[in-house]
């Protein structure tokens, strides 16, 4: 069974879009909130945590975990949509 080039290309584009979306969030929570904007965000506190500090040592990690599961789940849907899933 040979797939058409068009649908392969569309599948790859959908994947790249999803990757880009996830990497933007990855960058924003860690390098953005955790480093570049941390001095500003530290003016806000959640409990005893300055917000920038919280993103750097806690929040970014939780977001990373959620991101990978989200990517896996979305890709699974996209795989099925383009009929390239396994089994």
């Amino acid at each position, binding site marked *: *069974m*040979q*797939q058409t080039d068009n649908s*392969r290309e569309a*599948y*790859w584009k959908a*994947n790249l879009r999803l*990757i880009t979306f*996830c*990497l933007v969030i*990855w960058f924003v929570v*860690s*390098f953005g909130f*955790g*480093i*570049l904007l*941390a*001095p500003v965000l*530290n003016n806000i506190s*959640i*409990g*005893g*945590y*300055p917000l920038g*500090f*919280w993103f*750097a*040592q*806690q929040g*970014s*990690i*939780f977001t*990373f*975990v959620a*991101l*990978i*599961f989200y*990517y*896996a789940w979305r*890709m*699974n849907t996209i*795989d099925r949509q383009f009929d*390239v*899933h*396994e*089994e």
Partner: protein
Amino acid sequence: MDLKTITYIVVGATFVLYIALAWIARAGSTGEFYVAGKGIHPIANGMATAADWMSAASFISMAGLIAFQGYDASAYVMGWTGGFVLLALLLAPYLRKFGKFTVPEFVGDRFYSQTARIVAVICLLVISITYVIGQMRGVGIAFSRFLEVPIHIGLLAGMVIVFFYAVLGGMKGITYTQIAQYVVMIFAYTVPAIFISLQLTGHFLPQTGLGGTLNDGSDQYLLHALDKVLVDLGFAAYSELKGSMLNMFLLAMALMIGTAGLPHVIVRFFTVPRVHDARRSAGWTLLFMAALYTTAPAVGAMAIYNLIKTVQPGEVGSAEGNLAMEDRPDWMRTWENTGLLKFEDKNNDGRIQYYNDRNPEFAAKAEEEFGWQGNEMTVDRDIMVLANPEIANLPNWVIALVAAGGIAAALSTAAGLLLAISSAISHDLLKGVFMPQISEKRELLAGRLAMVGAILLAGYFGLNPPGFAAEVVALAFGLAAASLFPTLMMGIFSKTINNKGAVAGMIAGLVTTLLYIFTYKGWFFIPGTNMLPDNPDGWIFGISPGSFGPIGALFNFVVAYVVSKATTPPPAHIQQMVEDVRIPRAY
């Protein structure tokens, strides 16, 4: 029962468990030896990968690093976790689809070049060997501290155990023992952390305790109190940036792309049955890792707060504000014996002063107003985890558990690295380059022999560590970031990068990173041969040698692109191969 007996029993029991698992899961084929027959459940692989990744450094040293650097150490916390996002999105699923046994094998096939494969093998060997030496040393140190045996006995015990399950079981045996090691490790890390968090803040979860208020009736937030006491003692505030932001940014980036490019981690994702499993499995890995990585910042902050408050119970500068020498608690005396904690009563007042005597302004004030003659306590950062159970007055079995956890952390990482080394030798060099006709049975034997050789080598260097042992960690991450990660990524995401481009790119990344590190650390780490001083004033744009990885990676990308443009594009069957790697279902 005394502590030593309990420690022997707990550590001994974990060893019996590892060997039993290895015997049950011994490998019978090269497929089982290299990639556990590709039959590992994604959650099981996630747990094994977490143990594989979390080394003696993560377990023993990271919390101490955070304790003394505060917010600045966030680069490590984010760097060592964020790399798994890159791995899950950019590498793992596609390399799993490729479906072979090793990372250099993908490089060699995708770039249709034995040279590319050999360069990848060299990168892999340098990265993994420097890494494994530290792990074997970690096993020896953990043994010697907790069981009071000489380092070489501990190291030997570690070598025998690793020999047993890694040589016998290959990837399959390693996977099952790593799962057991993860459980031991995480239990040993979180139990003392929970108790300390309860004592200090009343929070069961260290993650919320770090943002909570202190239990001492002052109703102050822990982090505020910590900032205040540090500033009072002439240090910088805990929760604010002390170094350069650019350097912190690049360090976090170097650790992230370095993590994603480490071959012994990548290869773990070859062991799951399907592409979809590889994506999910990375999520599980990070979830299991997060249990330790989100606890470590709390352990660091709470341990340093406890330590300072023990030494400085009263007002800074008041006559009775400092701990009297003879009143110091038992755990301090215990750790003085190991040399990790030292006191020196410089002003002969019979009390201990801990403060920042390198802050000239504060040091002058302290001398003039308080009569302090310099900092009197030196602390090895490893104490922050090792002495935690004693500081919190926890029962002996918890201390024994921390010993077993430290050893598990070092052993699990060592085993993963040894496997990466032996498969690069038996599969990439022997089968791939020198003896393509070798039978499966003999390749398996060669893999086991290479493993034995690697264990002996790692053991030797663990016993006689080269003076630059700590320096080379920067090298391992720098190389992974500058050489393997960009090459693997281009192999998947570009159809136009060709054999010459890939080799030139890898070498460009490798050479620039090496040059930058050698400029500051000395040529081949020989002390005194550095061209520029290794401090923030000497670094170009304030970029430390350990943070250079992303810039080396940039060189790799640019050179690969330019060279590929100028030479013949990859043949049609290679472009087809890239197409296939991108699609989960096999055709």
